[in-house]
C-alpha cells in the first residue's frame, strides 16, 4: 500500500481556522450598501383556487420598494417537469406556498407589507393520503393527474427474472409493510440569498445552493436571460443535506431584484419557514413480498413502493427511480419485480434529503431481512452473509457489480462489536466471484 504525503492522511479543514474564529463569511453575514429585506405572503391553506391578488396597499406602505406576484415573473414555471410556479398564480397546492413577495427598507416594514396583501382564494379539500390520490376517482392535485410519470408510465418498474416462478418455488413467502416519515434536514443555516441586478441587467446571486450551475440554468430560464447574465457566487454553506439543491430564495429574490432599481435584496428564511415551506424528505410506503428457501436464500423479491411526493413533480421522478434501482438491497436476488410510484399530494413538494430514496429503501430491505430471519428461526447475520453481493453478481438492473464490500463491512462491524461470527462467514470475501 503506497503511503502518500497528503492523500489518506488526517488533515484539518482548509478553512478550519476561519470557522473557529468566526471569520467564515456565510451569505447571511454579508451586508451590502442599500440592501433591502424580503418577506413573502404564504398560503395558510393546503389547496385552493386563487381569484384575486391585491398588492396595492402593500406597495403604498412607506419603505416598500417592490412587490411582486406571478405577473412580474418573466417565466413563472420551472423544474424538470416544468410544472413548478415561482409564485402561485391560479391555485394554491400546498400550505406555505408563496403567492407574493416584498422588498422593503427593513424587515419589519416588509413584514407589515405582507400583512397588507390581500389574496382572494377559495379553499378546496386537500388530497393528503397518497393512496387516496392513486385512486382513479381521486381529486386531482395536478390537471394531468396525481402520478409522476416515467416514460409515459405512472411507475418506475425494475424487472429481472421471473418473480412468480420464484414464489411458486419458495419454501416461505414473507411479506412486510413499512412506512418512513417525511423529515426535515434542519441545516443550522436557513435558506438565504443576497441578490442584486446591476445596470447592465446582470443578476448577481450570493447563494447557499448546493447546485450552483444547476440553479444558474434554472434562474436563467426563470428570468428569460442568457446564462451569462446570471452570475452566481457560492461559498461556504451552513449545512445542506439536500435542503439546498432546489431553489428556495434565489429565484424569488432574483425576480424582485429586477424591480429594486439596482438595490440588493436579502432574504433569510425564519426557522418556521424552513419547517413549513422548504423541501423535505418524502414519506414512503413500501410493500415487500419475498420468496425464501428453507436455507435462507432470497430467491425472489417483489417491492411496491409509494412516495408521497407533495404538490409538484420537482425531483420526485429522480428519487423514485433511484429508489427503484436499489430497493432490493445489496443482495444477490435473481428474480425481482419492483414498481415504484411517486404520487402528488397537497403538501410541500418533496425532494432531496440525505439518502435520496435509498434511505427509505434501506429501512425496507433491512427490516424485511429480520422478518425473514424470525420466520425461518435463523440468525440474521447468516441471512445477510448468504445473500450478500459478490463481485461479478448482477444488480437488479442487471449491471455487473464490481468492488463490492458488503461482506467486509459486516465482518468488520461484527469484529468491532465483539460478535463472534461463524468461520464460514469470516472466510467469505466480496472478491470471490460466484461460480456460474
Amino acid at each position: 500500500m503506497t503511503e502518500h504525503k497528503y492523500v489518506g492522511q488526517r488533515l484539518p479543514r482548509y478553512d478550519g481556522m476561519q470557522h473557529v474564529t468566526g471569520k467564515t463569511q456565510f451569505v447571511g453575514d454579508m451586508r451590502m450598501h442599500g440592501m433591502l429585506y424580503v418577506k413573502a405572503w404564504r398560503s395558510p391553506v393546503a389547496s385552493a383556487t386563487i381569484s384575486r391578488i391585491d398588492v396595492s396597499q402593500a406597495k403604498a406602505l412607506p419603505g416598500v420598494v417592490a412587490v411582486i406576484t406571478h405577473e412580474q415573473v418573466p417565466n413563472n414555471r420551472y423544474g424538470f417537469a416544468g410544472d413548478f410556479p415561482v409564485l402561485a398564480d391560479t391555485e394554491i397546492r400546498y400550505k406555505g406556498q408563496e403567492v407574493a413577495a416584498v422588498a422593503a427598507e427593513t424587515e419589519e416594514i416588509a413584514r407589515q407589507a405582507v400583512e397588507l396583501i390581500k389574496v382572494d382564494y377559495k379553499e378546496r379539500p386537500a388530497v393528503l393520503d397518497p393512496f387516496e390520490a392513486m385512486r382513479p376517482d381521486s381529486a386531482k392535485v395536478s390537471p394531468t393527474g396525481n402520478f409522476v410519470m416515467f416514460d409515459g408510465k405512472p411507475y418506475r418498474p425494475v424487472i429481472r427474472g421471473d418473480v412468480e416462478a420464484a414464489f411458486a418455488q419458495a419454501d416461505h413467502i414473507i411479506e412486510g409493510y413499512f412506512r418512513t416519515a417525511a423529515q426535515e434536514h434542519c441545516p443550522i443555516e436557513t435558506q438565504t440569498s443576497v441578490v442584486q441586478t446591476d445596470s447592465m441587467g446582470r443578476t448577481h446571486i450570493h447563494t447557499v445552493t448546493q447546485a450552483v450551475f444547476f440553479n444558474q440554468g434554472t434562474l436563467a430560464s426563470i428570468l428569460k436571460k442568457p446564462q451569462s447574465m446570471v452570475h452566481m457566487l457560492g461559498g461556504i454553506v451552513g449545512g445542506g443535506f439536500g435542503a439546498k439543491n432546489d431553489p428556495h430564495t434565489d429565484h424569488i429574490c432574483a425576480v424582485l431584484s429586477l424591480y429594486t432599481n439596482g438595490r440588493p435584496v436579502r432574504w433569510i428564511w425564519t426557522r418556521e419557514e424552513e419547517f413549513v415551506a422548504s423541501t423535505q424528505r418524502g414519506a414512503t410506503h413500501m410493500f415487500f413480498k419475498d420468496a425464501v428457501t428453507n436455507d435462507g436464500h432470497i430467491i425472489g423479491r417483489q417491492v411496491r413502493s409509494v412516495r408521497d411526493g407533495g404538490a409538484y413533480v420537482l425531483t420526485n421522478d429522480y428519487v423514485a427511480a433511484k429508489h427503484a434501482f436499489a430497493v432490493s438491497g445489496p443482495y444477490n436476488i435473481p428474480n425481482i419485480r419492483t414498481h415504484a410510484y411517486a404520487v402528488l399530494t397537497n403538501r410541500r413538494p418533496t425532494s432531496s434529503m440525505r439518502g435520496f430514496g435509498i434511505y427509505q429503501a434501506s429501512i425496507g430491505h433491512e427490516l424485511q431481512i429480520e422478518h425473514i430471519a424470525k420466520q425461518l428461526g435463523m440468525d440474521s447475520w447468516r441471512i445477510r452473509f448468504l445473500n450478500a453481493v459478490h463481485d461479478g453478481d448482477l444488480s437488479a438492473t442487471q449491471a455487473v457489480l464490481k468492488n463490492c464490500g458488503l461482506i467486509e463491512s459486516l465482518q468488520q462491524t461484527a469484529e468491532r462489536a465483539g460478535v463472534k461470527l461463524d468461520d464460514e462467514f469470516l472466510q467469505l470475501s466480496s472478491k470471490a466471484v460466484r461460480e456460474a
Partner: protein
Amino acid sequence: MDYPIKFTLNSAEVEVEAPATINLLRLLRDYLDVTGPKFGCEQGNCGACTVHIDGEAANACLVHGLTIDGREVTTVEGLGTMEAPDPLQLAFYEHYGAQCGFCTPGMLMASKALLDHNPHPTRDDVVEAIVGNVCRCTGYNKIIESVLAAADAARE
C-alpha cells in the same frame, strides 16, 4: 423610537441606538456588524447565537437588547483571532469540531463558558454544557473531543 445602549463588547466600550423591541442577536449582527453569533432559529432552541453576558453563556436571541446596557458581552470574535487563537479554538481546528462552521461560534461560547467554570470537565459535563447547541453536521462526537482536548492541553 430608538434608545441608547452602552455596554462592553469584546473588551471594548460600544454605544448604539436601537428600538426597544430589538434582541441582542439582532443588535450585534445588524447594528454592530458582529456576525459571529448566528441566526439559527431565533426561538431560543438551537444555541447558534450563544454569547457570554457577564461571563455566563446565553442565547442572544432571547435577551432583550436594552437590558444589555452596562454589561459585558463576549462573542466568538472576542475569544481569539487567527493570529492569537484561544486554545479551545485550536482544539476545534485540530480535532475537526467544525464542519460547515455555522453552529461553531455558539458551540465555542458554550464550551468556553464550561471551561471557565470547570477547567477539568468529564465527558458528561461537556455534553451537559452543549446540550442546548444543535449541530447537524458533526454528530457532536468531535466537538466533545475538541473540548476535552482543550481541557487536557490547559492542564499541561
